[in-house]
C-alpha cells in the first residue's frame, strides 16, 4: 500500500518536478543539507538572529553571496543567510561535498590581477598611491602606479610603469624587487612665490615585502629610490616608503 502511494505521489509530482527544479537549476546552484540542520539568519552577519532552520536532507538554492555569507532559498520559499562554515557541510545534487571558491594561499601564489592602495612618506611629504598589476607569471608582474604627493611647499603627481619581481611567490611572506620609470608633475603651493609647474622624468628601483593576510587580501611594504631627471644640471634623488594593502583576482 505504501509503495503504491509512493508511486502515485511520484507520478503526480512529475509535472511539478518539470516546472520547479528544472527551471530553477539553470539559475541557481542547489545544495542538500548534510549537517543536522542549516541555520538561516536574517542578515549576512553573525549578529543577525537565526529565524529558521532547514533539516538534513532538504535542499536549498544559493541565491547570492556576500563576503562569507550565502543567501539561500528553502523548498518552502523562505530566504535567509547562511554562514560559509555551514555551507561547506552541504552536498551537491551529485552527492559530492560543496566546494566554494575562496581566496587561498594557493590561489594567492597563482593570481593574475592585483589592485592596491598605499600611503607613506615621499621625501618628507605624505604620499597616497594606487596601483594595478598584471602577473604574466607567478613571480613577475607589470605594474602601473599613480601617486599623489602632498608636500608642505608643493604637490606632485607621479605616474609610473614598471616591473616587479616576487622572489618566492608561494610563500605567505615574500620579498620583492621593482624597477620602473615614469613622469612626475610638480605644482608649487600658491601661497609661496615659487617657480611654475614642471614635469620631469623619473626612474625608480625598489625593494619590498608582500604578505598574504587572508582570502583575497594582502599587505605590502615597499621602499623606492627615485631618480628625478631634472632640467637643471644635477639630478635629484628621493627616498619613498609606502605601506598598504591589495586585493588579488
Amino acid at each position: 500500500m505504501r509503495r503504491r502511494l509512493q508511486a502515485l505521489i511520484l507520478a503526480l509530482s512529475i509535472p511539478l518536478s518539470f516546472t520547479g527544479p528544472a527551471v530553477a537549476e539553470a539559475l541557481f546552484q542547489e545544495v542538500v543539507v548534510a549537517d543536522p540542520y542549516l541555520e538561516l539568519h536574517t542578515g549576512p552577519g553573525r549578529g543577525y538572529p537565526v529565524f529558521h532552520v532547514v533539516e538534513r536532507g532538504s535542499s536549498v538554492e544559493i541565491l547570492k553571496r556576500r563576503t562569507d555569507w550565502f543567501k539561500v532559498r528553502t523548498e518552502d520559499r523562505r530566504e535567509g543567510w547562511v554562514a560559509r562554515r555551514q555551507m561547506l557541510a552541504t552536498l551537491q545534487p551529485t552527492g559530492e561535498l560543496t566546494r566554494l571558491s575562496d581566496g587561498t594561499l594557493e590561489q594567492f601564489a597563482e593570481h593574475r590581477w592585483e589592485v592596491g592602495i598605499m600611503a607613506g612618506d615621499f621625501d618628507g611629504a605624505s604620499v597616497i598611491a594606487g596601483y594595478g598589476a598584471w602577473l604574466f607569471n607567478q613571480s613577475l608582474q607589470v605594474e602601473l602606479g599613480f601617486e599623489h604627493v602632498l608636500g608642505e611647499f608643493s604637490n606632485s603627481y607621479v605616474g609610473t610603469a614598471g616591473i616587479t619581481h616576487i622572489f618566492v611567490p608561494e610563500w605567505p611572506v615574500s620579498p620583492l624587487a621593482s624597477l620602473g620609470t615614469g613622469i612626475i608633475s610638480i605644482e608649487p603651493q600658491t601661497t609661496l612665490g615659487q617657480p611654475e609647474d614642471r614635469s620631469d622624468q623619473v626612474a625608480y628601483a625598489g625593494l619590498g615585502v608582500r604578505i598574504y593576510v587572508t582570502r583575497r587580501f594582502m599587505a605590502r611594504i615597499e621602499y623606492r629610490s627615485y631618480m628625478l631627471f631634472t632640467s637643471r644640471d644635477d639630478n635629484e634623488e628621493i627616498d619613498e616608503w609606502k605601506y598598504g594593502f591589495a586585493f588579488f583576482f
Partner: protein
Amino acid sequence: MEVRIRLFLLSRPLAAAAALLSAGVLAGCASAPEDVDVPASEAEAARIIEPEIERREIKVPKIDHENFEVGAFAGILSIEDFGSNSVYGVRFAYHIAEDLFVEAAVGRTEAGLTSFEQLSGNLRLLENRDFTYYNVSFGYNFLPGEIFLGRNYAFNSSLYVIGGVGSTRFNSEDNFTFNLGIGARILATDWLAIHLDARDHVFATDLLGRDKATNNLEGHLGFTFFF
C-alpha cells in the same frame, strides 16, 4: 502488490520513465528497492524503457558575489572658519569580510565667507572657493541589528566606524587629510542600502596666517547599491 505497482508503472511508460527520472534525480534511492527483487526477464522488460532516459549533465551555476557597493550622498560640510555648505559626492566600497570594508569617496562643496570677510565688506581671502576631497578608508561594522518601521517592516542595519587618508583641495592647494567618522547602514533591500554618516576631515593649513589643524565636520545621507 508489487505486481500491481509494476503494472501501474508499465501501463504508463511515459509516466514510469519520468517517475524513474525524477526518482533517480530527486530522491536518489527512492526507486531502488523496487528494482531489487525483479526477476531477470521482467527486468529486461523494464529496460526497454530505460534508453529513453538521457543522462543529465549537471552544470553547477556560479554563485553571484555581491561584495561591491556604489552610491552617492549629499549633506552638509562645515569648513572650519568658512561656514557650512551643502556637500555631495560618490562612494565606492568593497566588503572584505562581514566586519571589514574599504571605501573610496570623493566629495565636493564650496567655502562660505569667514566672519572677517562678512564684516569687512568686499574683501575676499580666497580666489577659488571650491573644496573637494577624496579619501580611502577602512570601515569596521559593529552593532548589527534591525530597525523596525511600524508593525510590518523590519530592516537590517549596522553601525560602522570608518577612518582613512586622503587629500583635500582647498584654495587650489592639496592638503593631506585624515578622516574619521561613524555611520549607519540600513538595508532597505538586500541590494539597496541607506547611509547616514558623520565624518571629520582633519588637515593642516596656513590659510589664515599660521599653521593649524582644521576640523571639517560633515554629515550626510546617501544610498548605495550592492553588486
